């Protein structure tokens, strides 16, 4: 198996926590992993992204080539489109629908929605609302992960196990909230 994933969003949204869960699941399966990220600007409202590559064969490059990403998982709709040139033609975009408007010239959200609708395989989800409605307000990012599960090519229960290991030391309540969030995301899969 091989899955090349671009994770993106705005600093502070929890996008890299998703990468940790996927990485943990992949490691347990003895898959090869490479995950490159650009730090530093994440605290300051700038765009954040990570290239996460998992494979049953050794991986050479830490960076994904143009047209090489099987999945783009994004906490923000415009950020998902920033990496469009990296998406494979049959690749999936799984993104939050809520714009994060912290710049004066943020584009018209309808234009962004229209651009997303043009993608062959796309899931757009109001994860913030879904998180609030289901009593898991801090786990919107894990809802996104649940929606991306099939596209990632990782079995659902392996992601659940990874969540237990990653959040274990934060206590049972947090683990359960994230397990619930993963399930909510799964419902949104096509």
């Amino acid at each position, binding site marked *: 198996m091989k899955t090349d994933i671009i994770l993106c969003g*705005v*600093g502070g949204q929890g996008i890299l926590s998703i990468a940790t869960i996927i*990485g*943990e699941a992949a*490691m347990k399966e003895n898959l*090869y*992993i*490479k*995950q*490159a*990220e*650009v*730090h*530093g*600007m994440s*605290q*300051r*409202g*700038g*765009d954040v992204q990570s290239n996460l590559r998992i494979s049953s064969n050794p*991986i*050479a*490059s*830490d*960076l*994904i*080539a*143009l*047209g*090489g990403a099987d999945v783009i998982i994004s906490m923000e709709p*415009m*950020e998902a*489109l*920033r990496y*469009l*040139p*990296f*998406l*494979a*033609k049959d690749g999936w975009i799984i993104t939050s629908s809520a714009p994060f408007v*912290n*710049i*004066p*010239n*943020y*584009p*018209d959200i309808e*234009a*962004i929605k229209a*651009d997303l609708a043009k993608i062959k395989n796309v899931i757009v989800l109001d994860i913030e609302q879904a998180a609030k409605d289901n009593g898991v307000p801090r786990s919107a990012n894990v809802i996104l992960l649940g929606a991306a599960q099939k596209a990632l090519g990782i079995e659902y229960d392996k992601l659940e196990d990874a969540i237990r290991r990653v959040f274990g030391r934060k206590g049972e309540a947090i683990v359960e909230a994230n397990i619930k969030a993963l399930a909510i995301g799964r419902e949104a899969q096509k």
Partner: protein
Amino acid sequence: MKKLLLGDEAIAQGALDAGLSGVYAYPGTPSTEITEYIQDSPLAKERGVHSRWSTNEKTAMEAALGMSYMGKRALVCMKHVGLNVCADPFVNSAMTGTNGGIIVLVADDPSMHSSQDEQDSRFYGKFAMIPTLEPSSQQEAYDMMAEAYELSEQMHLPVLMRVTTRMAHSRAVVEVKDTPREQNELNYDAQASNWVLLPAFARKRNVVVTGQQPILEQMAVDSKYNQYIDGKDHKLGIIASGIAYNYLMECFPNGCPYPVLKISQYPLPKKLIRRMTDDCEYVLIAEEGQPFIEDQVRGVMPGNAVIKGRLTGELPRTGELNPDFLKKALGIESGESYAPCEDVTPRPPALCQGCGHRDVYTALNEVLREYPNARVFGDIGCYTLGFLPPYKAIHSCVDMGASITMAKGASDAGQWPAVAIIGDSTFTHSGMTGLLDAINENADITVIISDNLTTAMTGGQDSAGTNKFEAICKGLGLSEDHLKVVNPIPKNMPEITAAIREEINYHGVSVIIPRRECMQTLQRHLKQKKAAEKK
């Protein structure tokens, strides 16, 4: 034992497992995580490994030299421009030589993800005449640490290890040792004839160091990190160093048909390079950073092969490499991909909501509206973002500490008002000596030390001068009448603008210190407090 580690973390774990006694560093992206990993390591705590942040890279390098003098192993970490700051002790550590091993770990930043330039540290290794290692993978980075310390102690030379952002900040699974090596014992083997660089001794050392170069080169030829992998098609040969090797291998999932020379140890293994230039018609050189290898291989005289690389346009002259650039250089078709989306706009970083620097710039801008020719010399830190809208407050930012010294130079040239803005960590890093120059000459400048009690841009590390700034300024000779401390919050605007206006109109050195804790570290401390109270 297997661990999922950042390149930085692999280096840190490798150093600890090689019996490290001290890491000396100043925060700098993308090297910061090395020291943080050691600070958080239970093994390091158990062994009493030194890991507190240094005031700057020069003091870090010198302290490491002191530890090496006593026979123990030290690690110095910095970003590429940090090497400029410690160039004096760095170059002269080859002259003194080492007792306990020293690794100088420099993390370059091609494409300047968070730097002022993309200088290539390999030049420094050549300049200082020491071995340089450049790992191609996180596993290599880990393995190289133990070997670099052995090499350092064998040759009595510091070893430069060079990584780049995409190695430092990328995770992979690394196989680590189960049992770390013990630390070295303290010893008094260091000889004064090596360590006292009076000309009479230094000349002898210089002969020794220059004489060692052929040995270092032979070691590079024999090194397992430099591999000549032959290929069927000898029309083209490829030299790839460090992580460029990964991008090359990405282009050939079923194996490269051309001969490949992987370079991860310098000085350049000339014998292996000559084999390729003799064998192949064209040689493509893929290296991350500047055309360090390409320049040397091409030289001045024509050789057997035609050299292609960053200097001939096959690869871009500036910026980091990636698999797409390699594909293009090799004439490999890129797969189908989407065109960029036109509705996407840049999302530059901005000062956090509630940041004290915002209030400082608001006050400064208000006052400077009255002085249309004012110039504000900025410095390196979060407050550099004051250049961007809505503040557009600074006119320059060059290197650590340049705010104060440039303001003084501009004032010498006749500029008024000349304002400098500098952060607390940058001030102790390299601002104090500039302030002393200004005070000694009673320069007409206004210095703002925007103190958020941390080294913020790199993640909120401890700042060396916290609680000492007033005493430092007075100690340097600043008049108390022109040292003002303010709290940068909106309701204090009248007080702050009055202070700035008053000090601008004082024709001597003034220092204003707006002081309020960084929002990020404040939130972190509140969280920690809450967690502690729960227990």
